[in-house]
């Protein structure tokens, strides 16, 4: 029997597989297919202080081995979540991690204080990297100063595990990672989507209502993997890797490059069972290679 457990700071997770925020709703939809308690964690939909309608339709465009989205953080706000959703999902038997988003540092603080009160939410993922909102969002994530400011403010009020989600749309992601580590982040997750664009050549219009949107899926995997490797070599806190993971082999590549845990995003759209299949595949890989615990994979890449 192999040991699949891994730890993100004090957070124990039963296996290294999480769903990515914005790609698995509030886990309820996945429950139509299988019991999410088999997953390490579910990253809940990006939540803001107030209701957000998000961007106009069309919000998505298919690209080569990937897709662009311009959802723009549509959600009903934290109070609605606490009253109407949290009670339904809190006993799903997996770690629930809320993805929190603000347009100002104050919003992040106010939001975090509310999440502090939720007993069954043991970690938050601070999204400072959403490319699909005009105010805040990625603006914080693309400079060390911005990333530091949000992380510090939230760290001061948030007592449980603080994961900061990094934007890949930067010159030096290791720099940003070091900055948020210095401000007390317990972990970093990367990557969020890459800012991209799609054009309808026949109609001569952009394919997204917002012209540009966030690229995800296997297309971005090589860049995401490189960033995880760079960040793993730059910080001491655990790294959560994601970006184009479609199967266990991809997940293992991220772990070898330095990830302690991984998230499955867009692959869920192709097959909602993907996260579950990845758990199984990691287990089989460990058995086949006579490795006793998943945590041994982290950074186990051999080079030079």
């Amino acid at each position: 029997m192999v040991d699949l457990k891994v730890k993100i700071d004090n957070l124990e997770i039963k296996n290294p597989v999480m769903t990515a925020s914005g790609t698995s709703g509030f886990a309820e939809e996945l429950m139509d297919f299988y019991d999410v308690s088999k997953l390490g964690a579910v990253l809940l939909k990006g939540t803001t202080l107030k209701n957000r309608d998000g961007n106009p339709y069309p919000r998505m465009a298919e690209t080569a081995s990937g897709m662009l989205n311009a959802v723009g953080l549509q959600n009903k706000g934290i109070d609605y979540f606490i009253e109407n959703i949290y009670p339904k999902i809190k006993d799903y038997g997996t770690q629930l991690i809320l993805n929190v988003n603000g347009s100002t540092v104050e919003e992040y603080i106010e939001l975090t204080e509310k999440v502090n009160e939720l007993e069954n939410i043991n970690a938050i993922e601070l999204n400072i990297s959403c490319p699909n909102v005009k105010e805040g969002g990625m603006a914080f994530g693309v400079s060390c100063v911005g990333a530091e400011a949000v992380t510090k403010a939230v760290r001061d009020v948030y007592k449980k595990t603080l994961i900061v989600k990094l934007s890949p749309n930067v010159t030096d992601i290791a720099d940003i990672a070091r900055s948020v580590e210095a401000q007390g982040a317990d972990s970093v997750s990367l990557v969020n989507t890459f800012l991209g664009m799609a054009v309808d050549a026949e109609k001569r219009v952009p394919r997204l209502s917002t012209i540009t949107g966030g690229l995800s899926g296997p297309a971005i995997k090589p860049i995401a993997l490189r960033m995880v490797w760079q960040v793993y070599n730059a910080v001491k806190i655990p790294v959560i890797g994601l970006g184009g993971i479609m199967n266990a082999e991809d997940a293992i590549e991220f772990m070898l490059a330095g990830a302690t845990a991984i998230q499955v995003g867009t692959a869920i759209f192709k097959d909602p069972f993907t996260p579950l299949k990845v758990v199984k595949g990691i287990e089989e890989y460990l058995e086949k290679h006579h490795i006793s615990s998943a945590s041994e994979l982290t950074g186990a890449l051999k080079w030079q």
Partner: protein
Amino acid sequence: MGKKAVQDFIVIENRALNSSNFYIKVKSEFKLPDLKPGQFVNIDIKDSSEVFLRRPFSIFEVNTSENTIAIIVKVLGRGSKKLTEVKVGDVCNIVFPLGKGFTIPQSDERILLIGGGSGVAPMLFLSKVCGLPPENLNLLLGARTGEDHVNVDEYKKYGNLYFTTEDGSLGEKGFVTQHSIFTSNLKAFDKIYACGPDAMMKAVAKEAKAANVFCEVSLENLMACGIGVCLCCIEPTIHGNKCVCSDGPVFNINELKW
């Protein structure tokens, strides 16, 4: 749990209905759940270097004793093209059942079903299973030319069939909203259902609203997940943005911001 499934089906039939529409029937080795008109399936397009996501198609026929589902596929782009190249015996991976169906009419109601393009599929399914006396059911199908109409002779037994074509080659000339059954007295119907191109559904909805007749339309917004997790397929409604895939694809026109 287990309300929805991802399953391999086997293709047991694939034939051209006309130059651009194909009839594809797939069989499961498992018992099918209850499937309602208006619901859809999300199909993995295998072996394509160009298609990444699944493609959604309305359920057209269901045979619960044979465990088969049939769909009508109109060739539009890369995915639909590739899908119509499947051969009998091929495996077809499907996520289902998705979405909510139409409101089933009561047995004494008079209804009008309007289908355009591949939108005929859910209309035909609904006319077959709604259990109305044929005289109460009116099926109006629109297309560009007679050739674009798929053969629906079989559906004569479920109701009255009417056609429009833009070139007048079959049925009345013009759009569905110009057909005499539509223009004469819309209030004569208790319920109107429509599926087809956006422009057609909007035209239908406008008249139905004016006549104050119950009307449901089935939308075909672009989808990424089909299961309500990505929020890409949204349609603005009076209750805010709703997901076409999970809150729809069927909407009452009074809910829409058309």
